[in-house]
């Protein structure tokens, strides 16, 4: 048997898919495949991260990602604690840097961090020896979500190269879309972006994606369609007339979804706003893999934490 050169994980952090090589992305996906079996066991726990401490620093609301990370940490036998901005000394005026410095002084190995400002984890990474996992930074990246989307795609379709993957919705405010664009284009998928002109970031074509504003044309022959929520909380100006008008033009329903391939899969990173970007019946149909994505998220996060725990730099 010929030995294929193995990729080893050497990075301290996972900040985004922008910084990863194809081999590194594939290493995470392959490792996640091995970890997916753990959650099906009677004893859903393995002792790989025994003695490691993880802090989940969520400075922005989250349910799915936070619970998913916490379960991943527990199933790896890591000790984990959650921290939110409310209830912490950050409300007393402590800066993010001081908060992180204190977490490091408590001998924590990995910080899983969500922050409302793009680039916050990248900045923090420079100041700490702890490994940083970006769990979403502003409108920049959400790498583990994109990785679990890619994992789900690969699981159902058997490959990623050559697939047509379409994103419909609020691309402008979507860190999920950005991470997916970086990752999917690296792995050779054809990525199409669709949404109202005001919700498409200017110049996104430069990342190697196609922008089509007509939903029917955009999803024509698609292998997978990911719907994205309108992020009202990030909009402080009027970018489209009304939610109702958005729903009637870009909302996905069973009839519209027929323009995609017959075996196309429907994905959504959540939270789902039924009746807005997606018709309720379609969200619950057999073509919808929304809950499968949630299940896969744990395996992907277990893989990321496992790989990072080995590469932690103890010297700055």
């Amino acid at each position, binding site marked *: *048997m010929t030995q294929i050169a*193995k990729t*080893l*994980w*050497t990075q301290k952090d996972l900040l985004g898919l922008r910084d990863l090589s194809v081999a590194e992305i594939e290493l995470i996906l*392959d*490792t996640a*495949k*091995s*970890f997916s*079996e*753990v959650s099906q*066991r*009677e*004893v859903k*726990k*393995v*002792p*790989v991260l*025994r*003695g490691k401490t993880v802090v989940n620093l969520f400075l922005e609301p989250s349910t799915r990602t936070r619970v998913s990370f916490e379960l991943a940490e527990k199933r790896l036998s890591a000790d984990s604690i959650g921290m939110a901005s409310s209830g912490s000394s950050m409300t007393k005026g402590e800066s993010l840097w001081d908060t992180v410095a204190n977490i490091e002084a408590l001998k924590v190995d990995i910080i899983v961090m969500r922050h409302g400002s793009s680039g916050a984890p990248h900045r923090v990474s420079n100041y700490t020896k702890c490994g940083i996992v970006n769990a979403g930074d502003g409108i920049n990246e959400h790498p583990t979500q994109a990785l679990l989307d890619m994992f789900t795609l690969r699981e159902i379709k058997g490959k990623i190269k050559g697939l047509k993957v379409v994103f419909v919705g609020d691309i402008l405010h979507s860190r999920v879309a950005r991470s997916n664009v970086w990752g999917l284009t690296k792995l050779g998928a054809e990525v199409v972006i669709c949404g109202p002109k005001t919700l498409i970031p200017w110049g996104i074509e430069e990342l190697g994606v196609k922008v089509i504003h007509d939903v029917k044309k955009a999803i024509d022959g698609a292998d997978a369609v990911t719907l994205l929520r309108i992020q009202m909380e990030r909009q402080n100006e009027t970018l489209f007339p009304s939610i109702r008008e958005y729903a009637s033009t870009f909302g996905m329903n069973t009839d519209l979804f027929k323009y995609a391939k017959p075996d196309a899969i429907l994905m959504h990173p959540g939270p789902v706003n039924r009746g807005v970007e997606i018709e309720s019946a379609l969200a619950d149909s057999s073509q919808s893999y929304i809950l499968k994505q949630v299940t896969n998220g744990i395996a992907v996060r277990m893989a990321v934490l*496992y*790989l990072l*725990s*080995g*590469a*932690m730099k*103890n010297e700055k």
Partner: protein
Amino acid sequence: MTSPEKQILDEGGIERVLARIAHEILERKEGIANLALIGIRTRGVFLAQRLQKKLSEIEKNEIPVGILDITLYRDDLSEVGPKPEIHETDIPFNLKGKVVILVDDVLYTGRTIRAALDALIDFGRPKVIRLAVLVDRGHRELPIKADYVGKNVPTSLQDRVTIRLKETDGQDEAVISGGTRT
């Protein structure tokens, strides 16, 4: 410097050893109906599959075979450095009440088997776990002993014992190399 390899088992030797182990497993009369084989990645898996063939030839009974990757249970994972690759574990049957024959190629320090035992317990509570190895080379670091041994090979710590199997290496043999020998 690598010294020349010395063959300790050839193709026929491995074949005969596996046939004997299959008979020894049946001689124990622990209940063929509850028997299950679990191979430790990589070569233990192929040895388990071969044992299954031999057992079903004798007893006409389909014995389930599972695959175990012990990486997640290794005792050296906390050491700093890139993590080893993890492969899939596939045990498609319930271990509860089973007579599990754990199969590996070489028994050395015993640390792999310790990890495998911990892993197996997480899949259920077998009635018994027995250990079958193709080669026992000694130098145990843990109180672990094999129930079925293909060949006992006295070695020095500098020796390397290599098992080659058709499924992965194109040929069947067990060789020893590396140490000082006359």
